[in-house]
């Protein structure tokens, strides 16, 4: 594409140069993480306190302050980092503001009590990059999350934003872009890992001039929050990738489909879009390339199934959010019956990096079949819960034990559930597998959108399966028999089992159902909903059998199957449990032995929690 303005310095670049000229990288900057997690633990109050202290102590000239998107280490929030030294304070309170300004900013001292303490070594760690949680990660998409103000266009420019857009639009042909993405081996981050380049190509080749592109930011899995964090932290990166993709595909209109339960993300992407439009990065003749593109933000009502591409498009069109059969694929007949390309937030956000650094750079990360990095939300029974970005191919064990920091208690870790309700449980014994689409698929699980729930001995696998199926049964759109009826029936069977009504043959019936539902379901929801059941049966069959045959719950979770019992040799007769018991089920003499009346006991477990001598056990 010959461009008359190609050798004229772009206004964009001029702005960048201007900004860079005034930007002093050595000037201290206090960044307050304002991801949803940190906000919940009081980050905004901390920011206000810091602002006040800066004024009070007259530090304005010495320091900048800004809020950033999620830094990922939500467990330890609110997080405050001081740039450029990357001094990293965790669990900061309002009352700490004065000290941070007085000591760290003005004097360069480190406040010991706010530092992160390694739970394993007990060592205090000063710098963000030294914390094991971050050390083991490979942050590309999340690289700038902690340093830029998500509402600031300028911040994004300073870190090199929209360079890729200029490069793509002004120096590359659409086919070249597609080829580059193809070469990079980028797979869709929405869960299935379908090669993004191939998908774009199909859409580009589809006949017709009216085409659409969509950002899928519906993210409905319980426990997953990467897309939201990414948009909240760095919305421009998503937008940049989106515009490049639209250009490559030949679409002139795009939709960002985002659930309305993410108001902050909605706000930030809208700000980003407006800023981009102001600077001529959206609208007519972008960067003088002759390419027109604009974006509409469409809010979803928060149905999991609306993350499925065909349902999502139906929802945009104003119809009931239910999937339809493919073919026709969206690339043939998508939104409003036109060729449409839909990608996940992370997929779009990866594109600028590939354009900037090249397909070769990207494809050297990861495994044979899965390239690049991916983001997980690590939650459950581990020390470091939060958002992590790791290269594909890292072993589950490294991910959980090194990045995640292992179990926070004495209890042994037992399994990890990947991919949320659509994924499966992988037992500890198999954690040496590399994390990529293929390997997880082989184990009966999926990458999915990247939720990862770590479970220890105190988790009942039947109960976990029941929990996920409960989610799926309510989130099934109800269109097809397999999913609507089948998932409900599976849930019922699991519910019976956890309540002690399991019968011989239930496991086989479940397996049978799983198989048919996988084969018979219309969309991915039903096709993957049996995964939690299948994998837990596969790897933890003995737990099912214990529930069914012995009517016991080995993990001590299923209320109907457990009894609380006070060990006589451990009980000191302190009476604490009896005082806490809401059902007056515990009786005894102070100083003597206390006993639990199983008929009165409601199995709430409060006695076990309050007992200081571990005398209360579950049998």
């Amino acid at each position, binding site marked *: 594409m010959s461009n008359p303005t190609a050798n004229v310095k772009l206004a964009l670049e001029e702005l960048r140069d201007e900004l860079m000229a005034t930007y002093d990288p050595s000037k201290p900057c206090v960044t307050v993480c304002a991801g949803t997690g940190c906000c919940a633990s009081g980050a905004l109050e901390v920011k206000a306190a810091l602002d006040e202290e800066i004024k009070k102590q007259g530090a304005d000239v010495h320091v900048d302050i800004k809020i950033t998107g999620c830094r990922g280490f939500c467990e330890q929030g609110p997080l405050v980092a001081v740039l450029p030294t990357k001094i990293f304070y965790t669990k900061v309170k309002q009352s700490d503001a004065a000290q941070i300004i007085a000591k760290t900013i003005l004097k360069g001292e480190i406040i010991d009590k706010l530092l992160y303490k390694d739970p394993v070594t007990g060592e205090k760690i000063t710098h963000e990059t030294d914390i094991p949680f971050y050390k083991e990660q490979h942050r590309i998409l999340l690289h700038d999350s902690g340093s830029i103000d998500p509402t600031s266009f300028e911040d994004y420019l300073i870190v090199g934003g929209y360079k890729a857009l200029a490069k793509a639009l002004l120096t590359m042909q659409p086919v070249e872009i597609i080829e580059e993405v193809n070469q990079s081996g980028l797979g869709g981050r929405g869960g299935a890992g379908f090669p993004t380049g191939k998908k774009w190509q199909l859409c580009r080749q589809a006949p017709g001039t009216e085409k659409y592109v969509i950002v899928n930011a519906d993210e409905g899995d319980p426990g997953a929050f990467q897309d939201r964090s990414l948009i909240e932290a760095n919305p421009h990166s998503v937008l940049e990738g989106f515009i490049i993709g639209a250009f490559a595909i030949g679409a002139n209109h795009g939709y960002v489909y985002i659930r309305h339960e993410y108001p902050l993300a909605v706000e930030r992407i809208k700000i980003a879009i407006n800023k981009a439009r102001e600077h001529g990065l959206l609208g007519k003749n972008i960067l003088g390339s002759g390419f027109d593109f604009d974006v509409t933000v469409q809010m979803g009502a928060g149905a999991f199934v609306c993350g499925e591409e065909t349902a999502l498009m139906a929802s945009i069109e104003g119809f009931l959010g239910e999937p339809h*059969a493919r073919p026709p694929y969206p690339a043939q007949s998508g939104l409003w019956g036109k060729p449409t390309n839909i990608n996940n937030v992370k997929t779009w956000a990866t594109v600028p990096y590939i354009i900037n650094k090249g397909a070769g750079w990207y494809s050297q990360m990861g495994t044979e079949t899965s390239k690049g990095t991916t983001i997980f939300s690590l939650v459950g029974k581990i020390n470091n819960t939060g958002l992590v970005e790791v290269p594909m191919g890292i072993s589950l064990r490294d991910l959980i034990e090194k990045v995640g920091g292992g179990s926070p208690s004495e209890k042994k870790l037992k399994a990890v559930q990947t991919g949320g309700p659509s994924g499966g449980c992988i037992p500890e014994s198999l954690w040496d597998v590399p994390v990529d689409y293929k390997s997880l698929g082989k184990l009966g699980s999926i990458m999915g959108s990247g939720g990862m729930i770590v479970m220890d001995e105190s988790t009942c696998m039947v109960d976990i399966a029941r929990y996920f199926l409960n989610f799926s049964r309510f989130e099934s*759109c*109800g*269109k097809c028999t397999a999913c609507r*009826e089948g*998932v409900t*029936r599976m849930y019922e069977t699991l519910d019976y089992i956890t309540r002690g009504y399991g019968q011989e043959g239930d496991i086989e019936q479940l397996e049978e159902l799983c198989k*048919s539902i996988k084969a*018979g379901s*219309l969309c991915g929801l039903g096709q993957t909903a049996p995964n939690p059941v299948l994998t837990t049966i596969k790897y933890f069959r003995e737990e099912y059998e214990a529930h069914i045959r012995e009517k016991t719950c080995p993990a001590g979770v299923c209320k109907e199957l457990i009894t609380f019992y006070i060990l006589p040799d451990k009980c000191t007769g302190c009476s604490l449990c009896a005082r806490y018991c809401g059902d007056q089920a515990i009786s005894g003499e102070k100083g003597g032995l206390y006993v639990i009346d199983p008929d009165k006991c409601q199995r709430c477990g409060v006695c076990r929690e309050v007992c200081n001598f571990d005398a209360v056990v579950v049998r």
Partner: protein
Amino acid sequence: MVNLTINGEKLAVAENSTVLEAAQQAGIHIPTMCSHKDLTPYGACRLCVVEVKRNGRTVVTTSCNTPVEEGMDVTTETEEVNATRKTMANLLYSRCPEVPAIQRMAASVGLLQPSFENANPKEDCILCGMCVRACDDIAQEHVLGFVGRGMDRKVTTAFDVRQEVCDTCNKCVTYCPTGAITHLEAPKIGLGFKKKAHTWKVARVIFQYTTLLVFLGLMAATLFNVLQPLTVNIFSRLNPLQALVAPLAGRDLITNYIPALLTVVLTIVFGRVWCGWFCPLGAVFELFGRKDRHFKWQNMRKLKYVILAVIVVMAAFGGLAFMWFEPITVFIRGLTAIFKPLIQYVQLDKKKDFIMPGFQWFAIAIPFVFALLVNIIEKRFWCRYLCPLGALVGLGSKFSWIKRFVNQDSCVKCGECATHCPMGAISPENDFKSDPAECIMCMDCAEPCPKLAITFPKGQLGGWGYEFDPGRREALGTIGASAVAVGLLSLDVGNVQAAKKSVLRPPGAYYNDFLSKCIRCDQCIEVCPTHYIQPAAFEAGWDSLYTPIVDPFVGYCTYDCTLCGQICPSHAIPLLTLEEKQNYSIGGVGWAQVNFDTCIRCMTCLDECPYKCFEEVEVEGHKGVFPRVRDDANCVGCGVCVDVCPKQEVKAVVVFPYGKVPEEKYKFTKYTKA
């Protein structure tokens, strides 16, 4: 054209076809419950799964919404496909365990019991979405849609507000595979249809019971003699069976029966409405008994044709021996047997004087009681299996202009209609159609039909070809039974001829071809104010069962009464003026004769005889003066003399049928006062 392989068979189908259509074209059956040729494929039920190989990939997918592709290889039954299909069937069956269409579908894939229990076993919607698509594609109304997710999904209108168009449009109804469509709570689909059907049903019920009340009113009027007899016998006169056989057997045009033509016309237009709308006995049967079919030998329904045919054949030979089986007579006799004595008892001043009638009297109610008893087996058992009148109007209904019609495009064979049919006329074996000869046009089946498939349209042809059509066997049965009956009569088995001559008949009947006209309705007995007319058992021959005979030992003929002749619908008892009835050669019953051996010469008969028939005679070998009926008297056999004769056990005066008056045993001479 696109070339593909289905189950190893190569075929070419039109572009844009689906795999399901291609399979159907190849004659391969794939079960489905959510696809229809008129509607856009949807893929909800998942029953139509097949295995598809294309571009080296093998997937199990639904055939209804998978477009054919060049070189595709489809297998409609593999282990996985069958297992998946069976599970889908199981899930649907578990959702709607009581829907016959689902039960059949499940059975067709080898599933006889659902594996799971549904909290609401009455559920009948499988959420196939056909109605929603019909509303969009066919009706273009866009009022129906899905709301809710997962198990909470349901079909309804926006905000559950009923839409007026749903009262009448009904385009979706045809497509619903289960019948749930008209059960949807908010949309109230087909309300207009149902309201209309309900109105007809209510109209019918009102009409039917009004008819019953009118009938009972006429009965009461007869019993109390308050109405003109010509109106009280209207149910007989409208009766086409009586109108057919009485003139046939009596070889006489009986003008009384002209109203029956109206029934004929009604039957030809509306079918067997006589039974469903008019017949008072039918109305009684409607009050209890089980609907639908329960009796094992349904084929016995053809028996009624044999009964009818035998009656008609007998009539052709001049006999009406089995007319006591005619339903109106059955009902009249049943009521007469009970109410006549009852009223008499109530009216008596001295209850002591009441004489309880004997078995022979109550025997006239046997058919009525029998008909009520068998009604317990099945509602309208009589009408289904036995009624000769029903058989007659039934045959007429086979040609009727209006008939019950089941729209087979809509019918889902749920059988709901059959459970409402008081006649059990609806045949589960024959697509829930009904033989017009069995259908009594009660219209009870239209409203409950969830598919609004049942209508009563005009111009329906084809009344023949149903399961209970009378056939050769019935013809043979008729010939056999009629031959036996006619044979017995003509061979005079049981001395029928002599027995006939030995009884007294009501006034004027003696001079009439009485037995060829009497339809055994016993209304003469009912109306006779003095109980002079009584029912016969077998004393006048077996073919005279329930015919009226007069019994001077019970009553007498009132001098100025001609009610029996007026009420007789078939003129078996001739309609006489008072003068005619009082003339023994026109309206006579018989001749009275005094038995001189037992007469106590009280002369009460001589004093009381309204016709002044008696003279005084001296009898050879007897002392004193005796009463005797003059040879030239106008003795009509009214029986007053017998009635007043004080001898209790053996009356001293007896009425004999004309021609049966015995010779005087003793010589006598007329006594003249000295």
